[in-house]
């Protein structure tokens, strides 16, 4: 499925189940996401993580609502299945979508300005460098006798200074590699957007509406 439409579907459905109380639809979404993930060869370990995490946090939330609130058992069931559905749908999307293809699709199909698309990509490729920088900053501070925690302003200060340097360097390099903001570009890798994608989006949405509004529990 076209990544932009896939993203739209994900956000719309997640938004809708946040405001509706039909646990059967949540369960159906969980089952469908699970099937899609198994079909997409998502590793078993990953699936186990995706199950344990919402089970733990969702369970704790439901228990809290039981003790501190006036929720009915139907409401609790809705909240719990909703948490699992969020994580499964997010898992399906994250595990079966290539970030580069998604960005290219957003540029070509969703008309996201190319400066955003390639700005995001340039920064995302720095992810390992950012992690290493945080470790280096903490170690360098220790050598000055200073322990940095996640609440230490100096940690953020140093990272932001490094980030400003990198964004200057990357922006200069992009310009040097011919990138011009808001200028037309060619696309050697076309991301297809065909009728079938639209049918899948509309079809899925219609199915969810039917499930939500025909009076299922």
């Amino acid at each position: 499925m076209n990544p932009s439409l896939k993203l739209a579907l994900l956000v719309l459905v997640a938004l809708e189940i946040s405001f509706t109380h039909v646990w059967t639809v949540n369960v159906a979404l969980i089952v469908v996401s699970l099937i899609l993930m198994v079909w997409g060869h998502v590793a078993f370990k990953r699936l186990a993580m995706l199950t344990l995490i919402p089970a733990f946090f969702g369970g704790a939330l439901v228990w809290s609502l039981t003790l501190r609130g006036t929720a009915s058992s139907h409401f609790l069931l809705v909240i719990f299945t909703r948490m699992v559905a969020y994580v499964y749908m997010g898992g399906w999307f994250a595990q079966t979508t290539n970030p580069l293809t998604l960005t290219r699709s957003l540029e070509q199909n969703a008309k996201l300005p190319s400066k955003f698309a390639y700005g995001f990509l340039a920064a995302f490729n720095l992810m390992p460098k950012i992690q290493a920088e945080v470790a280096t900053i903490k170690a360098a501070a220790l050598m000055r006798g200073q322990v940095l925690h996640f609440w230490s302003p100096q940690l953020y200060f140093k990272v932001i200074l490094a980030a400003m340097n990198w964004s200057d360097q990357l922006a200069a390099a992009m310009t040097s590699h011919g990138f011009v903001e808001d200028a037309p570009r060619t696309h050697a890798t076309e991301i297809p957007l065909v009728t079938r994608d639209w049918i899948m989006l509309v079809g899925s949405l219609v199915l969810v509406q039917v499930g939500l509004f025909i009076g299922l529990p």
Partner: protein
Amino acid sequence: MVTVSIHNLTFTYPQQSRPVLNTVNASFPAGQFSLITGVSGGGKSTLLKLIAGLLPTDATGITFNDQSLTDIPATQRSKTVAMLFQEPSTQFTMDTVANELQFALENQQVPADEIPARLTAALDFIGIAALRDRKLMHLSGGEQQKVALAIIVAMDSAVILLDEPFASIDPATRLVLLQRLAQLSRERGKTVILADHDLSGYTDYVDRLTVLADGHLTHLSPEATQERLATFAPAQLRLQHVTVPDNDQPALLQGTQLSLSANGRTLVTPQDLGLFAHHTTLITGPNGSGKSTLFRSLVKLGHYQGVITYDGTDIHRLKRRPYARQVALMFQSAATQFLNVTVDEELTLSLKNSYADHFTPAMVTQLLTELNLDDRREQIIYTLSSGQQKKLQLLCMLIMAPDVLLLDEPFKGLDYASLQTAIQILKRVQQDLDITYILVSHQLSGLDTFIDYHLQLADQHLTYQGVRA
């Protein structure tokens, strides 16, 4: 074929009083390989960035075949001029080599069906076809610079600018890049302008040398260029006092079957290595051979195979906080070490956290005076010159007084007088506090009476040099 001309160019950075470039006039002829030299921080980068149109300026003083860059449509500028940067890893937008080349060609609006062929031709020209689908972040610095050049080749830019491109690159890669650049200028008529402070190994490739000093540019004639390049000898290390450490002496830091690698490239093959207390050890070796990687491993910031012990204990079993007191690293990039805003704040922090009672505020004032920093106490660190930052960093780390101080290029960017003072101070502190120094330095002059042991990293092996004691 494009000639770059510069007329009466003056440039001052905002918030600075003195211009970096002062009424510069110069011409870089089409099809020639020009080398610009000058001290670091002297304005070479600024000049190249101005030529590349990367700094905001009216820039009427710079023309390409009598045409100013602003007269060329933005989407066509990369065909005129492109730049290769000093820091290899922050010049790419995409994840893989092929995607980055594709990105650049798409920017130039090359028709989609022509892109694969241009991409392949550029990779073949540089000789990196095998890297095509590799992740850029997984490549070594040298490989990344090759990719950066391949991109410029694919874009077919007429003027190629390179800013200290070999700063962290191994000699073999440097040679390949130089050959390709010479080929680009001679066979394809490209105008190559390269900035480097180190003039070694350019004799066969460079047509003309230009010197940038005190904001002014001077071109040397071809004869003068060849003479200057031929007589340029890299600072020779003349250590007459070094000895090979005694085998019976217990090592403070001991590597057992220690090996190092980075991005799949072997840097040091398994070997035993002892580093000794209360002495000064100098480690030398080519760029990119693994000296900084060794330092990072010693302070638990890098991966290594084998075992490293400190005073008999595996450093994996030592907690970071107490270990940082025992073994500290003065990072190559000075800014990494600072946590505050002004010079005074940094010194106060070091004094507060120092492990020794040795240093007093009066002593620090004295040291600042010796290093010519006494009138800079209120200054913002990030506005100091690179040499001043380096001196402040050295002072901050010495005040901390760890048991072992690793120094990664501690003299980078220092003028000769500062270098002498820095060495004097290092010696004095060592006498007073018995600190162990291990340093990596390209700056080799004046070190003779300071160094006890000399470790050379060559052919993936570290060996002590000198005579047996």
